[in-house]
């Protein structure tokens, strides 16, 4: 069954664009990463899903129910953390858990919440106004996860968290997904999504520009190659094969290192290093490289970073 189905969803803010024709399907038990640069429409999509905003057109459904009309029923099974977390200054976690367990009608929520408090190293009786930004973020996460929701929607949840707490959160989300819970995580940071998610969609200028599994994306991502030429070797003298795309040429002499260049007749390593992308057959490239006499050559793992950077750069026509 699908946890989230979004069909031709549009939402505008007056004359300002929000999102247009967004289509998404997220399966139950999946960890879904929603990526995009700032202002691309991630939060707008999430706000429509949470019933805060009404769609201008199209439909958004969670567990088969309409997000606007069946909002209260849907939200029983959803845990949500907003992008810019703001909580009541007087709220303590203990009080928050008590209130939410009454609102949700779940007595066991309190005990589970206190387990999470321990895991996230929080003080249950400290009011929000005395907490740091990171701790406030953790409180919001605890309150969103304490009722063990079937769907967890997190809008940039790691902002403000230290790396250890980011790991704790990731571990927590993986556990939930293992137990069949669905996770939707929005972010503009690739690394956290890359390591966590099974399924990724990239939104740019309010439109979905990529919707695929991490495995498929990784397979389509190019490998990065760094070649260092010998001091006596000229970049132009090498006959480069068709399997590669040149991304960065060696630095020219007389540039930033000109002072160093004047004192030495041999080019510096920076002046001999070029970056390439493998776009063709790797075996043919390796055969070609083996016949060359370079000072050094390194081939990196397939990098989604390059792929994402291209998607993010909205004005480039090379998609």
């Amino acid at each position, binding site marked *: 069954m699908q946890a989230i189905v979004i069909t031709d969803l549009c939402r505008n*803010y007056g004359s300002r664009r929000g999102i247009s024709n967004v289509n998404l399907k997220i399966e139950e038990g999946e960890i879904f990463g929603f990526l995009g640069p700032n202002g691309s429409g991630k*939060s707008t999509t999430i*706000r429509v899903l*949470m*019933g*805060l*905003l*009404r769609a201008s057109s199209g439909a958004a459904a969670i567990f088969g129910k309409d997000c606007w009309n069946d*909002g*209260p*029923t849907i*939200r*029983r099974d*959803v845990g*949500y953390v*907003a*992008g*810019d977390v*703001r*909580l*009541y200054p*007087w709220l303590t976690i203990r*009080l928050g858990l*008590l*209130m*939410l*367990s*009454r*609102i*949700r009608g779940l007595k066991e929520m309190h005990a589970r919440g206190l387990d999470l408090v321990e895991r996230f190293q929080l003080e249950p009786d400290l009011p929000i106004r005395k907490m740091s930004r990171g701790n406030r973020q953790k409180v*919001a996460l605890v309150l969103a996860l304490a009722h063990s929701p079937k769907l967890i929607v997190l809008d940039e949840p790691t902002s403000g968290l230290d790396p250890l707490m980011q790991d704790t959160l990731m571990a927590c989300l993986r556990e939930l997904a293992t137990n069949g819970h669905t996770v939707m995580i929005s972010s503009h940071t690739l690394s956290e999504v890359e390591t966590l998610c099974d399924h990724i969609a990239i939104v740019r200028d309010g439109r979905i520009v990529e919707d695929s599994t991490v495995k498929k994306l990784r397979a389509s991502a190019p490998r990065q190659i760094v070649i260092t030429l010998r001091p006596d070797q000229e970049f132009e003298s090498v006959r480069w094969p068709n399997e590669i795309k040149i991304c960065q040429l060696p630095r020219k002499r007389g540039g930033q290192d000109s002072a160093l260049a004047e004192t030495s007749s041999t080019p510096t390593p920076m002046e001999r290093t070029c970056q390439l992308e493998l776009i063709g057959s790797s075996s043919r490239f390796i055969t070609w490289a083996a016949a060359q006499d370079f000072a050094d050559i390194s081939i990196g793992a397939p990098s989604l970073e390059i792929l994402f950077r291209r998607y993010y750069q909205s004005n480039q026509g090379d998609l």
Partner: protein
Amino acid sequence: MIGLLQKIWVEVRWPVLFFSLGLFSVMSVLTALLPKILANMNQFFDKMPMIRPLLTALLGVDPGNQASAQISQAFLWVHPTVLSLIWAHEVMYCSRVPAGEVDRGTADFLLCLPLSRWEIFWAETVGWLVSGTCIILSGYAGHLLISLTIQPDMRLSVLKSMTVIVNLSAVYLAIGSFSFFVSTMSNRRGRAIGIVFTVLLASFLLNFLAQFQDWAKFISPWLSVMAYYRPAIIIQSGEFPWFDIAVLVFISGLMWLASGFVFHYRSICTV
């Protein structure tokens, strides 16, 4: 709903306590000072003639011609400090949701709870009614306590006092529901409070101008809430102001329903 009421309790208990104590004190002081004020009322009018139309506007009758020990008790219930305290509380309270929540960024948290917006609105309404009752009754308690020490002929009967309180409560309902309405249309609490206070001030001034200007007298029943709150007439005639209360409750109900529908159907943009 219990969880929401608990949230409201935590947020408003101190302001409600302060407003209740404030009104209790003001009503006590005014009740204690009333005999002295009455003794010198005509001197006041001779020295400051502008006071007379102001009091006429507030009371609905000319205090110089009709002053009696009991009618003058109506001063208490129309005193600007008393009205300001009650209205300040409700304008602040009724602008909390959604304008206040959006303004401080907590709307995401509140509106993503598994509750419908109507449930949230109901809980807010319960808090508004309960807190208003506490504050108005505190004021009455202050008056009652001190009135035991004043001359018996100056004391109002419980029935007349209760009639005035019911009329004041109807005014409370009308202004509160208007505040709710403005709040549901706004994303800024300060703006919502500003609009309500401006309208209240205009309504108050219109009631005052109606003493001098015919055009103001003509439109006052349509636009001034004070035209439906006349404690002096209630005390003088002893009649229950059915019409005034019905108008205020009708307006209040209409505004409350409109607020609920706007809140229910509105997209709330928190960014």
